[in-house]
């Protein structure tokens, strides 16, 4: 590819070639038998060209000299037309000349993991959850991703990054009469990490299976979550969604600048809010941190070469910085982060989350529960919805427990809650200690026109919120 790049690197004000080669094995086993075996071996090239201050893109899987020539010519033609109507005129500062490499931390590379090993793990875990005739379906699946990314630019950038990623989920569905309930490992596909084959620890997974299936059965006879305003404790595997939807998205600078208004939406956050808005209670400290080993969206550079650094987004409850790439920083004059990312070679990079983490507090979980006179604790996300300005949300969880007079009492099914972002975060009144922080993520964050999904990571302790509207199903 270097030879091809050299042919074109002087043919525009700026030229970059990004190649992606990503292999995804998506294997699903249901009731101990094959459900679906899909694999995607995706390879292609994204060409970036800057003409007269406007950046344009051409993507192709025709990575032959002829295909690249055609793609480059299309990039120039379309960008020249678009450059007459630009939203903003950029300069070369949006593409730094970074050099280096990154590799996910792993003990055994995922490309050494055989189909037989994966299938055996999924089969055994799927069968383990079938503990009772009331369990009507058990699913165990894994997405195993190896991704190689290479970037070179006429500004002198040259870096490569290799990611090993596992997304592993297990779920059991129980039915009795007209009642059906599903319990899973941390909700849908929340169990995501950059890790090697060592992730597949059968002994530990079988213990998870036992808990999943017994809780699915427990939910069949549980009472519905009450409808009332009370204290609410959210587990880290629900907090991941709360952080994602009500902190991550509203802080994206391209949303604040209005680029997403037709699709994903705008934001309640205004440029003047940075440095002033009391986003949450003083307990709230949120960081953008793509430097955490094993978290889903860690990297050394974003996809245009901006070096990744840990930065506070919210400190002691006050909004500090947005999630804006070098392009959005130049457009808005606001501070941002290294977050220019694309779903693959066939989409242009935009402002995305990476790892957005809520830092721990000073309570043990028992101490937190003991502070609740009347409340509910909820585990594992199963439903999510929020408005296009990221104010009014409603989330649902798989499993809940009632808390009365500082003690956990009965199991609750269909636990849901709703609120408004800033008042909700200002009602935060306790966080468990850093050693209770758990790390999850999502492979499916959607945004952009044309649309993109991206992988994100979120870590959080347990969090206590006061006076929240909770309710059940039916």
């Amino acid at each position, binding site marked *: 590819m270097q030879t091809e790049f050299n042919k074109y690197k002087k043919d525009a004000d700026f030229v970059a070639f990004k190649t992606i080669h990503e292999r995804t094995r998506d294997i699903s086993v249901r009731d101990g038998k094959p459900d679906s075996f899909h694999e995607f*071996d995706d390879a292609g090239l994204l060409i970036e060209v800057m003409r007269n201050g406007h950046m344009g893109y051409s993507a192709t899987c025709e990575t032959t000299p002829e295909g690249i020539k055609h793609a480059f010519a299309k990039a120039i033609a379309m960008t020249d037309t678009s450059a007459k109507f630009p939203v903003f005129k950029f300069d070369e500062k949006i593409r730094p000349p970074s050099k280096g490499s990154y590799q996910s931390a792993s003990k055994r590379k995922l490309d050494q993991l055989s189909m037989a090993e994966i299938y055996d793990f999924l089969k055994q875990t799927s069968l383990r959850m079938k503990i009772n005739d009331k369990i009507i379906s058990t699913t165990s699946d894994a997405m195993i991703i190896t991704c190689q990314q290479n970037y070179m630019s006429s500004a002198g950038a040259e870096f490569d990054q290799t990611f090993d990623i596992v997304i592993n989920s297990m779920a059991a569905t129980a039915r009795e009469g007209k009642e059906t309930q599903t319990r899973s490992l941390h909700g849908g596909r929340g169990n995501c990490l950059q890790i090697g084959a060592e992730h597949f620890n059968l002994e530990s997974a079988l213990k998870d299976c036992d808990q999943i299936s017994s809780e699915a059965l427990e939910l069949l006879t549980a009472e519905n979550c009450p409808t009332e305003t009370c204290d609410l404790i959210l587990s880290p595997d629900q907090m991941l969604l709360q952080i994602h939807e009500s902190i991550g998205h509203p802080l994206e600078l391209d949303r604040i600048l209005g680029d997403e208004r037709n699709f994903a939406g705008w934001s309640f956050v205004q440029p003047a809010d940075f440095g002033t808005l009391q986003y949450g209670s003083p307990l709230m400290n949120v960081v953008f941190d793509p430097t955490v080993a094993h978290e889903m969206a860690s990297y050394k550079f974003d996809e245009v070469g901006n070096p990744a650094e840990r930065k506070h987004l919210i400190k002691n409850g006050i909004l500090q910085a947005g999630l804006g790439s070098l392009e959005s920083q130049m457009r808005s004059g606001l501070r941002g982060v290294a977050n220019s990312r694309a779903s693959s070679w066939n989409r242009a990079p935009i402002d995305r989350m990476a790892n957005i983490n809520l830092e721990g507090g000073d309570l043990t979980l028992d101490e937190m529960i003991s502070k609740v006179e009347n409340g509910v604790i909820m585990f594992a996300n199963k439903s999510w919805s929020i408005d296009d300005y990221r104010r009014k949300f409603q989330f649902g969880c798989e499993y809940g427990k009632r808390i009365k007079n500082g003690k956990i009492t009965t199991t609750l099914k269909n636990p849901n809650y709703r609120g408004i972002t800033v008042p909700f975060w200002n009602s935060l009144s306790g966080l468990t200690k850093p050693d209770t922080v758990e790390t999850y993520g999502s492979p499916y964050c959607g945004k952009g026109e044309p649309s993109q999904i991206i992988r994100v990571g979120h870590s959080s302790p347990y969090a206590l919120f006061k006076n929240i509207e909770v309710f059940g199903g039916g």
Partner: protein
Amino acid sequence: MKTDILAYLKKYTTEAFNQLLADEELAFNLHSEESDFIRFSQSKVRQNTTVQQHEITAQYQLDQRTYRLRYNLTLDYATDMKKFASVLQQLRQDLPKTDPNPQFVPLVNNGLSETFKKATRPSTAEIIPLICGTFADSDMVGLWCSGPLRQAAINSKGQFHYFETDYFFLDYSLYDGPRAAKAFYAETNWNQQAFLNAAQQTKNTLSLLKRPSQKVMPGSYKTYLGPMAVAELMGMFYWKALSRASFEQGFAPLKKLHDKDVLFSEQFTLMENLSLGYSTPFNALGELSPQELPLIEKGRLQNFLISTPTATEYKLTSNYAEPNEMMKSPEIRAGTLDEAAILKELGTGLYLSNLHYINWSDPQAARITGMTRFACFWVEKGEIQGPIQDLRFDETLYNIFGKNLINLTKNQQVYANTSTYLKRELGAMKVPGALLREMNFTL
């Protein structure tokens, strides 16, 4: 020189099938697109991307086992055949290490077809100044998408179905501060005057939003849902509600409808209607799906979407749904409500043009939650009073399309699928507006 994709595909698949051993079966699915995406913000170009993407999925079958492996074609024959050889070697190595699949369907020859459709449209070089010029007096944000798209379902038993189309859409909204109106423009052939008229109509809708904002408290209100709002609700029928496999495996929002514990309104009929012409006539297996399939007819569940793999596993009869058992081209049949009578029939209540971010809040009860979005109004005595602040609803499909459905509009709108996640999607939906006795708003 530009490659003839159809000729290339024939040559490639013929050679691939020649490499199979006696008991091996192989099917290919093609998704090929040459897409121009122009992203607009503030009526100017934010990003322009052109994409050449040719994905092929090899479905390899042997001894009751199936594995699907998708990869990209470079359109260099030697490179692509070399890739195929390595794919085949991997499949031969991996598949025997698994167990027989309960959904296994032996490949059969479902026939031959070649379909070509083509839109006439301005070139991308022409469309950029045209769109920027048309909306120069507005704050427009959205996406132009155009270019050829090809899909095929081919197998080693002799089946060869090929579909090629070339279409465009402009999916956009106009803003005036925080107030916005949403629109689409997509036709078989570009009509400059129709486009300009539609743009003006969107600007007119935006001007209605200049009226004083109305504060509406949570509660139940008589509600009119415009076709775009109904289209958003339709998304929940896509989301596993009509999938037979999901139903069997416990995710069954329409179980009460199936068991006849609750019915939808007699006015509600939902069809899968491929005759809208926006999707391939064949499914991923190459089976020819019926042109029309009643799903819910006069309020009663008539059919789930049943793919042949699901039919095999649960010993049912296939209706040749896609393997993912999602609708491709649904239609909610029209009602009798005249466009001109909507406000009068609504009287006092909410007029909702769009809904947003809908999700199941209790799937067992077919209960959903979501938000109002874009041009939504408070109406009193048949007159629009002004735009509302966004409201959250939490309501069951049984209430919306059942006991609370007063009428559906005579007028139906067709919306081409504008989804571009990973790749462009074919398909469309045809929906009317809906007048509801009440709808429950919670926040």
